[in-house]
């Protein structure tokens, strides 16, 4: 029985259906308004939504404050970008590689980090991400800090041309929908409920008999793999990959999205990513100091609405 997080909103199928319908209509609306530029903006939002959702799995459901999540995002991007630069653009293999390598990295990092607690866990995840960042910087053969330009996008066959903005948008939408559905299934499964029990009180969970370390590690790996998937999409969207994807401020940005959207909610990652990126897009048209306003909004959310925007939308749960 969960005590801290609000009841998953995704149980409400009307909201999901409405959102999906709007999302499908969106690119055609943009085309009609001669504003195709916003289709690629929406794709970017979708990709960050996937990354933020994967972090939310760790942060919200697992209670694991990982400050190095950008590492998996970056690993996924390089795992698709480097092969394309070398001539291997097969999307299925590339994306599978991204998820596998990111997951493996998560396994290694998690195995070590999860043996620490509290603030030490935060710091050690940061340390590993920074190590990978500097590693990416050192490999001049694949651009180093100059980054790597990718001349073509992943090829998935079936005549799917990812270079077309609308096609790419739908690919991102499909992946996002799959991730959100998968998350909802996961958190209401036995594993999901065990993880939340561990989050709430891991001594009690252990005494009940849950293998807490192994469950946390599995969660870490799943989150890492999905982060890698987001990275694979990102390198396609940008046609470019550089180490800044792994820098600590990128991890911070993902955390901001999670808290803005709602820690421990299925929709939190998407709402947070959309909120932050739309705020950026809207405010930067009016002022160069848009980060000032984002900073204040974030501060107010942390201080007064710690359950984020999704928390505001959910019905208040009475405490037992």
């Amino acid at each position, binding site marked *: 029985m969960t005590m801290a997080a609000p009841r998953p909103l995704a149980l409400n199928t009307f909201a999901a259906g409405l959102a999906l319908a709007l999302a499908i209509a969106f690119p055609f609306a943009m085309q009609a308004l001669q504003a195709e530029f916003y289709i690629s903006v929406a794709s970017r939002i979708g990709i960050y939504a996937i990354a933020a959702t994967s972090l939310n799995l760790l*942060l919200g459901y697992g209670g694991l*404050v990982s*400050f190095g999540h950008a590492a998996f995002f970056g690993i996924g991007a390089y795992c698709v970008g480097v092969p394309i630069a070398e001539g291997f653009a097969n999307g299925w293999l590339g994306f599978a590689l991204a998820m596998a390598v990111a997951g493996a990295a998560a396994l290694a990092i998690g195995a*070590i980090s999860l*043996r*620490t607690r*509290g*603030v*030490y866990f*935060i*710091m*050690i995840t*940061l*340390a*590993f991400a*920074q*190590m990978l960042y*500097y*590693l990416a*910087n*050192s*490999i*001049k*053969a694949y651009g*180093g*800090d100059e980054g790597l330009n990718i001349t073509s996008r992943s090829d998935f066959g079936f005549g799917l041309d990812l270079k077309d903005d609308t096609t790419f948008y739908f690919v991102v939408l499909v992946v996002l929908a799959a991730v959100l559905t998968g998350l909802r299934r996961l958190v209401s499964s036995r594993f999901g409920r065990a993880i939340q029990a561990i989050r709430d009180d891991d001594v009690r969970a252990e005494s009940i008999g849950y293998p807490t370390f192994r469950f946390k590690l599995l969660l870490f790996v799943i989150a890492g793999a999905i982060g890698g998937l987001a990275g694979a999409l990102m390198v396609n969207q940008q046609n470019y990959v550089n180490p800044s994807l792994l820098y*600590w*401020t990128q991890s*911070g940005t993902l*955390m*901001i999205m999670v*808290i803005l959207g709602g*820690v421990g909610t299925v929709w939190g990652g998407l709402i947070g990513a959309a909120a932050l990126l739309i705020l950026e897009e809207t405010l930067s048209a009016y002022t*160069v*100091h848009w*980060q*000032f306003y*984002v*900073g*204040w909004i*974030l*501060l107010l959310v*942390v*201080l007064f609405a*710690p359950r984020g925007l999704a928390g505001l939308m959910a019905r208040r749960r009475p405490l037992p």
Partner: protein
Amino acid sequence: MSGLLLIEQSLNGLQFGLMLFLLAAGLTLVFGIMDMINLAHGSMYMVGAFVAAWLVELTGSFVIGVILAVPLTGLFGMAMESTLLRTLYARDHLSQVLATFALILILNESVRMIWGSDLPMSAPAALAGPVELMPGLSYPAYRLLIIAVGLLLALALYVLVARTRIGALVRAGASNREMAMTMGVNIARLFTAVFGVGAALCAVAGALLGPLFAVQVGMGESILILAFVVIVIGGIGSVRGALVGSLLVGMVDTLGRTVMPHLFREFLPPQMASAAGPAVASVIVYLLMAVVLFVKPEGLFPARG
């Protein structure tokens, strides 16, 4: 590598390490005593640098500008602590990370709105040249000043923390906050004071490094992370640990810029050797941090118990 080169590089490492120490000292005390992760600490460094650059321009004197900037930044730090940051002490670490990350954004843009995205700052003309330390080795006078100030402040901090009553209160707070409170220490005022001193130390570093680096928005972000590495290695809450950690990191960083590229140039083309050197040095630094966190999380000089 010749002896003179080694001496000069050691001085460079020492200079960098001492400035890093000024940041780490404040950070470790805040973290140790208040148990708060303060990502906005690097912003104090930036604010200190901007205020100093602005005052130097205004007054026409480097000395006056820097000396005035330090207490001003300290006061600003205390104001921030007593209004905003105080509300975060009771919160969990994630909230602290996010709130102080938000502060970085707010402070970056505030500085940009007031002064623009960067300010020029020059070392005083009197110190613009070299000092001959020994035949064949001239070292920039300005950097010698930095080393001197750094050593002086390290000594002063040692005396303050180890030999005075206030220092005893600080050490008590760092090692066991609840006990210190029950013993009647006015924790709120102690916290504000510690924060103010931390901000002032950052301002010294920012003002002194301004002429060497660039006084620009966002300058605190890269040095902030290094400061966290240092305090983890040294031990959260320990000023002595911060000193040892800073000097260690300063040396490794300098070695990474010189010895390692030499080594790599033996078997890598020059562009790759030059890229690999500093990157490997950074990886080593973070590896050290990870090892400490795994094996001895309290750090090399634990402050607690």
